[in-house]
Each structure stands twice: as C-alpha cells, then as structure tokens.
C-alpha cells in the first residue's frame, strides 16, 4: 500500500535506492509491488515464482490443471496482500512460501489453517535499509548452507517443506538436518529479535 504520508514515502524512495544493489531482485520486485503497485515488477515475480510454486504443488500430488488454479490464487494473494510484506522480517521467497503453504494446507484440510496475528503493518514502520540488507545476506548464507547438504539431507528438507502434508510423518521428520543452517543464521536471528523489540517500543 502506498503510504499516505509524503515524508515517509520520500524517505522510503531514497532508502530503496540504497537497497537496489544489495538486496535480491525478488525482494526488490516485491517492494515495488507493495509501494507502487508496479505491474512490471509483479510480472517478474510471477516469472520466477509461479513455475516453482507449481512444482511444489505437483510434488504434493496435485495435477497440472488443479495446481495452476492454486498458483493463480497464490499469485493474486501476493498482489493483494503486498502491503503486509515486511522486508525487515522476510525476504520475498520466504513470504511467498508462507502464502503458498497456507493455501495448500487450507485445501488439504477440513479446517482453515490457523495463522498468527500480524504485527503492525510495515507501512507504519520506519524503513531501515541496514536491517533489510542484513536479512538478505543471512538468507544468502542460508542458501549456501543448504547447497552444502548431502543429497539425502536435501531430500529430507524438500520433503518436509515442499512435500505432502501428512501428520503421521511428524515423528520421523522432526530430526531435520538443520544444525548447520541454524548456526549459520543465528546472528541474523539475534538481529531480528532486537529489531522486533524496537518495533514493539514504537
């Protein structure tokens, strides 16, 4: 959502130009969709994520046509809910993953998936380019850590995060090989926690 306060908007724009060479393209596109309803940026997000979300859905057993119906829902939700995207707390892929998984679970279950209450809308929060860049760097390190997993470990991660949604799997799947990943992103977590405390104070 475009902030109504011109000062905030101005601050945002100069802050965004500082982000442009340091943050992933996907996150920048999503910020452009959020702040300017930028259709070209949305089209790029679509080109990147839609075929991958389709792949995720087909892994869990949806057929071609049915999976595209869900992809459509997910991408339209990305467009409509972009105002809630907060790059201080998530990069684009994590935020879109949440939307896609929510939708997938709603379809698979009788009940709607319970989701936590949102924090204050990011449009009300002063943008901190340093924090956004730091989060993006942590996410990059996370990808590097994932790349170093063995094929078996990668298969377990993919099955848990992208695969079918069965309860019976919990006990077997909880031993995910996340140790290395966690140590890689611990710093980022601490930073996030501080950030969150600051947000609460405002």
């Amino acid at each position, binding site marked *: 959502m475009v902030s109504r306060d011109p000062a905030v908007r101005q601050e945002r724009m100069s802050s965004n130009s500082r982000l442009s060479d340091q943050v992933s393209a996907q996150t920048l596109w999503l910020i452009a969709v959020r702040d300017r309803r930028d*259709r070209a940026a949305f089209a790029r997000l*679509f*080109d990147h994520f*839609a075929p*991958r*979300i*389709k*792949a*995720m859905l*087909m892994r869990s057993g949806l057929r071609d046509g049915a999976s*595209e119906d869900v*992809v*459509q829902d997910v*991408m339209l939700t990305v*467009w*409509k809910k972009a105002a809630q995207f907060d790059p201080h707390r*998530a*990069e*684009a*892929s*994590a935020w879109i*993953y*949440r939307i*896609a*998984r929510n939708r997938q*679970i709603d379809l698979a*279950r009788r*009940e*709607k*998936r*319970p*989701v*936590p*209450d949102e924090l204050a809308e990011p449009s009300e929060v002063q943008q901190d380019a340093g924090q956004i860049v730091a989060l993006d760097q942590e*996410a990059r390190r*996370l*990808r590097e850590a*994932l790349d170093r997993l063995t094929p078996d470990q990668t298969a377990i*991660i*993919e099955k*848990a*995060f*992208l695969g079918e*949604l*069965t*309860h019976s*799997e*919990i006990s077997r*799947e*909880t031993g*995910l090989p*996340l140790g290395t*990943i*966690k140590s890689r*992103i611990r710093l*980022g*977590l601490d930073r*996030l*926690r501080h950030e969150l*405390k600051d947000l609460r104070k405002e």
Partner: protein
Amino acid sequence: MNQPSHHIPEELIQAYVCGMLPHAYSVVVAAHISVCDECRTRMETLEAVGGAAVDTLAPIALSDSFKDRVMGLLDAEMPVMEKPKPKGIFPGPIMAELDGSPPRWRSLGGGIRQQVLNEGEDGTLRLIYIPSGMAVPEHSHRGMELTMVLQGSYNDVEGEFKAGDVEVAAEVTNHTPIAGPGEPCICVTATDAPLRFSAWLPRLLQPVFRI
C-alpha cells in the same frame, strides 16, 4: 502482555511451518506466536528455509496464456476472507475457533468450566477456566498435551505458567495444575484424545463432559 518465558518446542514449530501439525495443536502454536516475538522469529527462520527450498526447485512450465489470465485478474475484485482479530485475552487464532463470539462455558463442577472448540480424529481443542486456587482434577492423557495460558496463571510440577506461556505435557505426565492467585486462569489446550482422569469421580464424568 509481557513476553512469555515458556515457549513452543522447536520440533512443534517446525511441524507447524511444514504443515504437518494437527489442527488443534496448530491453533495453540499460532496463538502463542501471536504474542511471542521469539517464537515468531523462529517460525520466520524456518519459513526462510522453505523459501530457499522453493527457490531451488526446478520450474515446471505453465500453460499458454496462464500468465496473461492472472495479469488480467489483478484489478478484479477478489473475495477477501477477513482474518479474525484478537479480542481481549484471545489471540486471533482462538477467536477464529470461537467464530468471533465469547466462550460458551459448560460447568464441570467445582467452579471449573470448559468449552470444546474443536474435536477431530487427530486432536481436541478446548478452553478451560479454573478459578483462582482451584486444581484441575489429576489427569493423564493420551498423546501430547499442549497448553497455553490466556489469562491468570497456574502452577504444576514444572513451575509457574503465566499468560502467554505454553506447556507441553507428555503422555505419561500425571499433573495437577493449580490456578494462581488473582484472576481466574483461562487456558487453551490441545490433546490427542479425550483426557483420562486418574481420580474416580471425574472418570465417571468423562463421557458426560468429554474432558
């Protein structure tokens, strides 16, 4: 609300993010994350793992004109499902289970009340109301019991649990939570199956009240 000091175990947050946690437990996890910065951050970290996993998937081609269709729908009105808002002591995920209404308590005797919010094959979700100083009848339960305090506090062998705190009790635990001083203690709790009480009277009442 002060930040909680008893948190959701890592494996439950993981199961929640991956979509592998039964509904009743997911409600308690989502309710706790609503008020807990630490667990929210842990959830977001796991979502970052999910996002990275999506990014590395080999794309599957979309059908012709699919993109044009979606782009053409950007301005269309989409029915927006309003998410239930938190109200009073109840976070949004609990308000959703209450369908937006105040609790409809049912007396269990001794001032203790409950409302079953959801009951399914893979878990039961209920609100429990315990007057200050009262004990929940000693009980064991099938499967894991996940409890979050919404108001007041209680004590059991594991310590003191205040508003926002969660406790996980294993199947074998035989525990007697006693509500703390002050406001009545209100909790939301997820169990795998109807609780089995150890004391004989409550056990007789069990089929009646489905506790």
